[in-house]
């Protein structure tokens, strides 16, 4: 594998551009939209991306130049084609098309979920893992089988991070809710029963979020945060364990922003120890949404000849990872 790819991520609140080659991340620049109040407003997030895209791209090119990689070294432009917020995706895709035309290089459309997996395989010893991908909008358990990353279990309604954010807003905590819930949960050991919804291999979090909000009426915030975490994480760890039993794979990879939570890591670690499989967590900078992962999967796809024409570079807000024919693995 060879080449240098510039990748742009911007599916939700994080705008991030990175330049990657087969050895490492050469440069990465990120600018995050943070709402003054409430959660992510899709239009405001897209306006943020439009406002800062040129700055972020200029900075990443400058940073790369300092390390001896110039714009003429770039072989392709990768962008997150979906899933994500439509307005954000379109903004980033426009920037990517412009760069592809300007540098006269091919365009690569990357599935955001698969980029999380591939950057994990790159930056940890995991080779053929069951991946638990938990972020704001996504909660999926995936594993590779016969030419595709299959979804073995997923949320039927909202992502786990979203459920936490919704609860946090109702509890008067600011966005993002996850880290605050984690801190408050540490102050309690009193479990309040909440709905545990695993349907076969699939999960549901919206009812859990509502029930946790209801529970605030007659319980302390600390107790509810603790119970919410314990319930939600047990659900996703259970589905991950089932996927291991089903596929016979020997590795678990954690991906996505919610993966920063230490209690979630601890639970996964216990499960993996008890099942005798290895557990892999990438560095924090590769867990949440980042440009490097888009550039890296872009590099893999570019090497496999998996590129797009400008005419076919539409974004797809509901882009499923199991719709992608994996061209970059043997």
């Amino acid at each position, binding site marked *: 594998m060879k080449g240098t790819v510039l990748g742009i991520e911007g599916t939700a609140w994080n705008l991030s551009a990175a330049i990657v080659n087969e050895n490492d991340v050469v440069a990465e620049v990120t600018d995050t939209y943070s709402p003054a109040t409430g959660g992510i407003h899709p239009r405001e997030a897209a306006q943020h991306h439009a406002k800062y895209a040129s700055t972020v791209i200029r900075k990443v090119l400058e940073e790369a130049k300092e390390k001896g990689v110039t714009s003429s070294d770039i072989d392709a432009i990768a962008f997150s084609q979906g899933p994500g917020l439509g307005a954000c995706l379109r903004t980033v895709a426009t920037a990517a098309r412009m760069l592809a035309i300007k540098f006269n290089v091919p365009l690569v459309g990357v599935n955001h979920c698969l980029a999380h997996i591939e950057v994990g395989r790159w930056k940890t010893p995991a080779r053929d893992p069951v991946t638990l991908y938990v972020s704001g909008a996504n909660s999926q358990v995936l594993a590779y*089988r016969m030419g595709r990353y*299959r979804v073995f279990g997923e949320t039927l309604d909202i992502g786990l991070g979203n459920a936490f954010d919704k609860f946090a807003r109702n509890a008067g905590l600011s966005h993002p809710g996850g880290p605050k819930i984690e801190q408050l949960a540490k102050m309690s050991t009193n479990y309040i*029963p909440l709905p*545990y919804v695993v349907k076969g291999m699939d999960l549901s979090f919206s009812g859990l979020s509502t029930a946790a909000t209801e529970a605030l009426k007659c319980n302390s915030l600390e107790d509810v945060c603790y119970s919410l975490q*314990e319930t939600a994480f*047990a659900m996703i760890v259970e589905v991950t364990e089932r996927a291991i039993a089903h596929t016979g794979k020997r590795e678990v990879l954690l991906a996505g922003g919610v993966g920063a939570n230490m209690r979630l890591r601890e639970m996964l670690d216990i*499960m993996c120890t*008890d099942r005798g499989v290895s557990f892999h967590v990438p560095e924090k900078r590769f867990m949440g949404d980042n440009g490097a992962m888009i550039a890296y999967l872009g590099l893999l796809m570019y090497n496999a000849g998996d590129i797009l024409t400008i005419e076919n570079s539409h974004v797809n807000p509901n882009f499923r990872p*199991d719709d992608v024919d994996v061209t970059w693995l043997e």
Partner: protein
Amino acid sequence: MIVSEENVDGDIMELTNGAEATVRIEDGCVVKERIQKRYRLRELDERIRKERTKAESRLISEARRLGIPTPIIYDLENSVIRMQYIPGTPLKHVINEELSERLGRLVGLLHTGGIIHGDLTTSNLILYKDRLYMIDFGLSFMNSGVEARGVDVHVLFQTFESSHRDHESLIQAFCHGYRQAFTGADEVLVRVTEIEKRGRYA
């Protein structure tokens, strides 16, 4: 869960060690025990195991009332079910068109009664004294939706395809029996082809 015909006289025999439960044979009975998960808070873990054990045994009995041969439940305690051991042959070793059609009728009865098996494989059907027993209701639930029924049938067709050479004739025979026993069969079978295209439950 695979219950084979060998080794019944041994007092205790470990049959499987899945993600969720262990199954062993004790004094000629099947003992299914949902195992403790250390990653889960003890209180939550006990609640879930107890609820699921109760639900499973209720659905086994409910299926039996619908006319589907299932193991008789002897006892239920916390997260342990003691039930009848069916000593026959797993369907996967003996399947033919006639048995596949009978299976279609059984699944039709089950779906008419609003039950989804959740893990319909030819290992979870046992032929014993010319009766076809349905076992392992560990992933079963009540649902009368087309999607859940479609997934149930799709899972079965996948085991046909992966382990039986003449799967096309088996599928046809199954559909024949399924239509006989269940009036909503056609709608479900259309959904099955849609689910296949999605490639979701691979």
